[in-house]
């Protein structure tokens, strides 16, 4: 009864408060918006139902995250209000038990929080059923979807989070301390979770995720098929169940601690025992009037000058900083976070599980992130700023020292600026700690070139600026709102709006506080031109910051008059000339810098929202798709005169295209697609023609030919193109041409022939919105391929001029080089046709030159050139060896290499990507930082280079389903063969092990079969595995032969483009009939083998040999595209392996036995005799069939030994 009364009173009290209702409204709004905006677009994209349990669960999880951030006040108040208000002596002495008191309060908080999360569910319902949603996306109403989300996700989250917040609040006696509990949980969910995730501890992430972020947002969105997303209910099983149990356990533990440590006792400030000896207050012995001579207080001069005020400001700043730094939160920020930074930086120096040289550039990428773009890893910092600012602003009033402080003879701006300075000091200290942490990580990894200058520039110049600008927000919000909890809530809301502005439809960086185009830094490019726009935008925001500071200063709460009207009246009185001049300075900055930015983003350059550009794409399709099937000539040769002016970031191109009509039909008019934004000077055709349409905005021209171009005839198109940036755009500046380095694909600026389907909108949602007919993302595999559809390839000749200190690169033979008028010129030509992507680069390169001689008798010599950043020279040798080995193997097995040159170019960028065009491979700077940290580890640079060179032997293939399998899978298969041939089987097994890791391509257990494969997992992993296992079963030569025939056939200019069906046909011809089942399983359907070694025993025979007995279970299932799995009976050959104890290279390096055995579905026993003592044995030991290494890694077991003969 008593606990009911405590519950009832608390519930009623909290339900009657403003803040509770504000929170209710906020949750409804967020949930409706999430459903309408976030989920709707995703549902449209993925075509699942908005009413599906998946969609509901996702919104629920987001609601939970948001709840965690803003609602700690509920539990905090229930736990600590009595102490905070000084009511506790009355309550504690009432005849109630601890259980009644704590139980009633806790349950009331849970009840309020439950209501909030119910409102999230309600918001989802409103979001779905309120008018405006496409009826196709609304399925039948199923209460179970809402219930499962609520019961499995929201309710446990509420219970254990409330328990933790409640614990911290009751312990500290401060309601706001509940927020600290929230921040820690949030930190667990977001920061630690992502950190563990990226380091491959995926399961741990799922167990430790307190909100459901990972198992709902990441796992299910990835693993569930569209049909599952539309219908399947979330179930409480497996990891989800364990996770919920773990966290309920933690919640229970928090409650237990609360209960056992809580005491109905007077709260004294806890002192450590060694301080207890201090004397108590000395009381003068005489009571009554004393005649002791008065102590004279010296009449010291006091000053009230500006200098004093400045010193007072710094004094308050310093004491505020000390107060924060020595609080729990401060320790978290200044000690724990930097300590976490060390492993974060250290571990992130792995790219695809290969170590990167921990250069400062790479380290800095882990430490920075703008406030105003979607939540980054450092989202915790703005949240801490909000928390700390609130604590500082309310510090005096919370301690009931407000009146005493307010009457001090200090100017109004002193306490405000002092506290702001306190936050600035804290951020400064944090930045210093972050820098030290990062340097520590570098040192641990054995790297000592710290580049302090770069650290200072980036961390203190760029990142700290973001934080300090943001810190103004909680100040002004608290001062305007003048209610602590609502101030916190409003500050967090303000942050959410800033961080997710695009979700709210605000795109222009001039409209989102602190937003600016991103800066970037690479060793090749430096900051490029990215710093300028960043600075202009930030100066503009500093202007706003000053204005906000002025408003905060005049609205600063002092004294007891806190009616808003009175405060506004007071504020006008506080507008002193000095304040006004600071305000005017801010205004001036806003006008001047804002004006300058606006001039750049909206006047010099056209400003386009995403909707605007979509509209243009839609217009293009509406107007010109009618010409899609008009016969058009092909570009067969191009001659380009390029003048690059790196300093001006300008490029001039004079181009001549040789066009050929090989359509077999008469061409009436030529359609030229120009690139909007590129100035086209002249554009003329040979012969007689009339320009009947010239649409510069959409980039389409029609030249009507007189007479028409007959079949087989040719023509010349001449043009000039000019690109020069005018200032910067709202999203920053194009980094492809900068003073230090230029890298671009010329097709992004040069005219092309015919209607460009690639400009069409692709997402079904956008197409629907613009009333365009639905179109598949990619044409079906079964679309017929015609020889006439294939591009013919282009012979390219290019003369390039660049600045004298740079080297320009294009595909082709580097024939001449000369200097003229202080500029350097290069001439390149291709000796065989290349594709239509023409890479163009210019930078201060060093050239590493090598040669490859064809080992056959042909005397073919290929000139290898690696253009690299001068300091990036560690990979050159290995790259060259890899290129040579690849050329050896590929020319022998797949066909001739058609060029006399092979160019490798480094391009600016910190990623680790490589890309192959015909006769040219590019790599980003990160690749140059790949390092082999110990012998016996995979040489990834070597392996990836074999893959890129492998692309040169890709058959020209059609852009339809299965296209990435034809290019990526085949090139990886080539690469695996080249690695095995040149580096040995051990290296190949290392490569296979690397490829089985779930990063960067996580396994997907659904979708299309390999023949129609599109996604990266299928094309980069399953495809190469499939080809490789075929080669293991049928022999390399059979598979190589099939691929060689595909290439030979489709290389012919009159052959149609190749598809996976062509490859499949050749494979079928190559492999014996007995393997057709495997071919079918691998390519035609999505097959999953589950092969386990349940128990392995070994027994020594009297002869001294070993008899190994494997108890094996096997099954295979086929998953259809919707993810429905059907078991298929198995009766086929599977490799069985036995391995000895020698692990000198890696675990399986001592291969004693590897043979195919016939395996059926179910359990079976196999006995093998090996000559030596075995260590490991298993089925499919290299995971060729059973490719899921992570989920079920019991293919191999340790042999249990029975030594007795």
């Amino acid at each position, binding site marked *: 009864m008593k606990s009911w009364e405590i519950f009832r009173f608390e519930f009623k009290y909290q339900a009657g408060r403003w803040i509770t209702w504000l929170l209710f409204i906020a949750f409804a709004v967020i949930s409706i918006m999430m459903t309408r905006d976030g989920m709707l677009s995703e549902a449209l994209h993925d075509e699942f139902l908005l009413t599906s349990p998946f969609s509901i669960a996702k919104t629920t999880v987001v609601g939970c995250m948001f709840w965690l951030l803003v609602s700690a006040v509920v539990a905090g108040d229930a736990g600590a209000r009595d102490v905070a208000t000084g009511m506790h002596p009355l309550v504690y002495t009432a005849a109630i038990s601890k259980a009644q008191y704590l139980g009633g309060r806790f349950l009331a908080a849970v009840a309020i929080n439950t209501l909030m999360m119910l409102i999230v569910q309600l918001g989802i319902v409103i979001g779905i059923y309120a008018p405006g949603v496409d009826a196709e996306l609304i399925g039948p109403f199923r209460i179970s979807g809402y219930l499962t989300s609520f019961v499995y996700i929201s309710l446990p989250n509420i219970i254990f989070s409330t328990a933790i917040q409640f614990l911290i609040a009751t312990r500290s006696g401060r309601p706001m301390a509940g927020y600290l509990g929230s921040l820690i949980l949030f930190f667990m969910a977001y920061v630690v979770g992502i950190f563990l995730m990226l380091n491959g501890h995926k399961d741990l992430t799922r167990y430790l995720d307190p909100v459901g972020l990972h198992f709902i947002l990441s796992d299910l969105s990835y693993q569930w098929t569209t049909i599952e997303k539309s219908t399947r209910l979330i179930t409480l099983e497996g990891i989800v169940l364990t996770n919920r149990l773990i966290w309920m356990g933690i919640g229970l533990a928090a409650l237990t601690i609360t209960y056992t440590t809580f005491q109905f006792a007077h709260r004294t400030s806890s002192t450590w025992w060694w301080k207890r000896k201090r004397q108590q207050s000395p009381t003068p012995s005489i009571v009554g009037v004393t005649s002791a001579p008065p102590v004279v207080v010296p009449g010291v001069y006091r000053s009230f000058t500006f200098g004093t005020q400045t010193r007072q400001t710094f004094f308050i700043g310093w004491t505020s900083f000390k107060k924060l730094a020595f609080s729990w939160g401060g320790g978290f920020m200044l000690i724990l976070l930097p300590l976490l930074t060390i492993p974060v930086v250290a571990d992130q120096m792995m790219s695809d599980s290969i170590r990167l040289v921990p250069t400062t550039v790479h380290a800095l990428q882990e430490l920075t992130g703008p406030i105003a773009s979607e939540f980054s890893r450092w989202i915790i910092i703005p949240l801490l700023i909000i928390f700390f600012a609130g604590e500082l602003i309310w510090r005096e009033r919370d301690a009931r020292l407000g009146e005493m402080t307010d*009457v001090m003879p200090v100017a109004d701006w002193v306490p405000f600026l002092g506290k702001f300075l306190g936050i600035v000091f804290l951020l400064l200290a944090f930045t210093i700690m972050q820098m030290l942490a990062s340097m520590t990580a570098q040192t641990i990894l054995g790297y000592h070139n710290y580049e302090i200058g770069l650290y200072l520039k980036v961390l203190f110049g760029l990142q700290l600026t973001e934080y300090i600008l943001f810190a103004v927000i909680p100040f002004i919000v608290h001062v305007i709102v003048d209610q602590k909890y609502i101030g916190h809530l409003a500050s967090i809301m303000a942050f959410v709006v800033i961080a997710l502005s695009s979700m709210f439809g605000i795109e222009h960086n001039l409209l989102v506080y602190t937003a600016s185009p991103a800066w970037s830094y690479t060793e090749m490019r430096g900051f490029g031109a990215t710093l300028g726009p960043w600075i202009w935008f930030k100066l503009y925001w500093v202007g706003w910051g000053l204005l906000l500071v002025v408003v905060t200063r005049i609205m600063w709460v002092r004294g007891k008059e806190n009616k808003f009207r009175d405060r506004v009246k007071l504020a006008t009185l506080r507008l002193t000339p000095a304040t006004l001049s600071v305000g005017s300075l801010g205004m001036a900055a806003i006008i001047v810098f804002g004006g300058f930015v606006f001039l750049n983003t909206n006047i010099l350059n056209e400003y386009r929202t995403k909707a605007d550009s979509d509209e243009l794409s839609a217009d293009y399709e509406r107007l010109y798709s009618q010409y899609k099937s008009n016969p058009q000539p092909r570009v067969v040769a191009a001659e380009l005169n390029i003048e690059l002016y790196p300093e001006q970031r300008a490029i001039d191109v004079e181009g001549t295209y040789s066009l050929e009509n090989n359509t077999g039909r008469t061409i009436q008019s030529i359609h030229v697609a120009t690139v909007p934004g590129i100035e086209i000077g002249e554009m003329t055709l040979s012969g007689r023609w009339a320009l009947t349409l010239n649409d510069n905005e959409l980039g389409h021209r029609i030249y009507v030919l007189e007479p028409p171009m007959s079949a087989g005839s040719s023509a010349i198109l001449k043009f000039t193109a000019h690109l020069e940036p005018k200032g910067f755009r709202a999203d920053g500046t194009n980094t492809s041409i900068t003073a230090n380095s230029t890298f671009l694909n010329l097709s992004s600026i040069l005219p092309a022939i015919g209607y460009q389907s690639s400009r069409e909108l692709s997402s079904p949602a956008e197409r629907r919105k613009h009333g365009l007919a639905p179109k598949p993302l990619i044409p079906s595999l079964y679309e017929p391929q015609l020889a006439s559809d294939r591009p013919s390839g282009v012979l390219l000749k290019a003369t390039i001029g660049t600045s004298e200190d740079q080297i320009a690169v294009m595909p082709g033979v580097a024939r001449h080089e000369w200097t003229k008028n202080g500029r350097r010129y290069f001439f390149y030509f291709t000796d065989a046709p290349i594709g239509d992507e023409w890479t163009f680069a210019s930078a201060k390169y060093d050239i590493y030159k090598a040669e490859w001689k064809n080992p056959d008798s042909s005397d073919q010599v290929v000139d290898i050139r690696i253009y690299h950043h001068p300091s990036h020279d560690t990979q050159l040798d290995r790259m060259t060896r890899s290129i040579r080995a690849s050329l050896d193997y590929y020319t022998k097995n797949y066909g001739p290499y058609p060029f006399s040159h092979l160019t490798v170019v480094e391009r600016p960028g910190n990623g680790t990507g490589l890309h192959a065009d015909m006769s040219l491979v590019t790599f980003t700077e990160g690749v140059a930082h790949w390092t082999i940290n110990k012998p016996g580890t995979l040489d990834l640079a070597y392996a990836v280079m074999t893959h890129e060179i492998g692309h040169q032997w890709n058959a020209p293939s059609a852009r339809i389903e299965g296209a990435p399998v034809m290019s990526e899978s085949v090139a990886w298969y080539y690469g695996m063969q080249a690695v095995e041939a040149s580096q040995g089987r051990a290296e190949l097994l290392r490569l296979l092990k690397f490829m089985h890791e779930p990063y960067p391509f996580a396994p997907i257990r659904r979708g299309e079969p390999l023949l129609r494969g599109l996604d990266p997992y299928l094309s980069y992993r399953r495809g190469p595995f499939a080809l490789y296992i075929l080669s293991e079963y049928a022999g390399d030569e059979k598979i190589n032969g099939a691929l060689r025939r595909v290439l030979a056939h489709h290389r012919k200019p009159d052959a149609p483009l190749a598809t996976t069906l062509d490859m499949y046909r050749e494979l079928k011809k190559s492999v014996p009939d007995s393997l057709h089942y495997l071919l079918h399983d691998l390519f035609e359907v999505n097959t999953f083998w589950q092969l386990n070694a349940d128990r392995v025993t070994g027994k020594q025979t009297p002869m001294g040999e070993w008899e190994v007995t494997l108890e094996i279970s096997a099954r295979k299932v086929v998953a259809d595209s919707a993810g429905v799995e059907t078991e298929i009976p198995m009766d086929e050959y599977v490799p069985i392996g036995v391995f000895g104890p020698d692990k000198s290279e890696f675990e399986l390096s001592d291969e004693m036995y590897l043979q195919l055995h016939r395996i059926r579905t179910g359990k079976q026993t196999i006995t093998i005799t090996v000559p030596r003592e075995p260590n490991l044995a298993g089925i499919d030991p290299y995971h060729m069939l059973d490719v899921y290494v992570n989920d079920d890694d019991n293919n191999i077991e340790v042999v249990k030994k029975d030594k007795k003969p």
Partner: protein
Amino acid sequence: MALQITNISKTYPNGVQALRNVNLTIPNGMYGLLGPNGAGKSTLMRILATLQEPDNGQAQLTDVPYTTTGVIDVIGAKDEVRKTLGYLPQEFGVYPKAKAEDLLEHFAVLKGYDDRKSRKEVVEALLRKTNLWDVRKQKLGGYSGGMRQRFGIAVALLGDPKLLIVDEPTAGLDPAERVRFLNLLSELGENSVVILSTHIVEDVSELCTNMAIIDRGEILLETQPERAIKELQGKTWRQTIDKTALAEIEKDHTVISTKLFAGKTVVHVYSNTAPREGFESVEPDLEDVYFCAMAGHIGNRKPAAA
């Protein structure tokens, strides 16, 4: 120096009229503002301490030394007042984890003691004066009520204030602490205006040379304790009776106050002439003045129609 308060009124948003047309002249020295709980004392104190705005009215410090005009507008020139103001609020807290010395020094910085060395001296002197020197390194959270109050007055005394406002400082103090605290106040020089608001009559009678009685926002009496007592001489009478007889007496006499003494009721009545049998003349004290003023026998309030 004097504080001139003219026509100050203040009504709260909830309709409570805290001050009505208050006029007071407060000379140098201790000034007692006596009134029951809720009389408007604290509102007046806060207005004088620059923390609240009156709806109308003026308050001026006159004859202020070291100023050009000699006048400070307490309502309008807040920054000027604060430079010479000491304020001890009725209720205040402390940072429980801060040491007395540190917090006092913090306030000293805010009060404009710019020089570190002399600031330390001032802090030391004040800590000694308030008898907190020995516990200066203790955390304020462990202070007793009296120590905390002394710490408060130390803060208020920083900067040698010419206008010192102490709002109900003795409420809740034990007798010894109260005496100690009043001792401290009594030492304050005669050259500053000290306003002591209290509901305890003895505080005023023990300390103040001038006083005013305030109730429901109105000044009932502005006087000097000695004079007021003298004016009441011969008009106060006392009788010790049984509680049941009280109604009888109230019918015929103007009762000032009734008190219990050893279980019997002692009743004071106001009368210009000797009342009937059983009453004896009694020497009036400030409490009689207070109750007379509250009841309207003397001062500005009209006596309630009997």
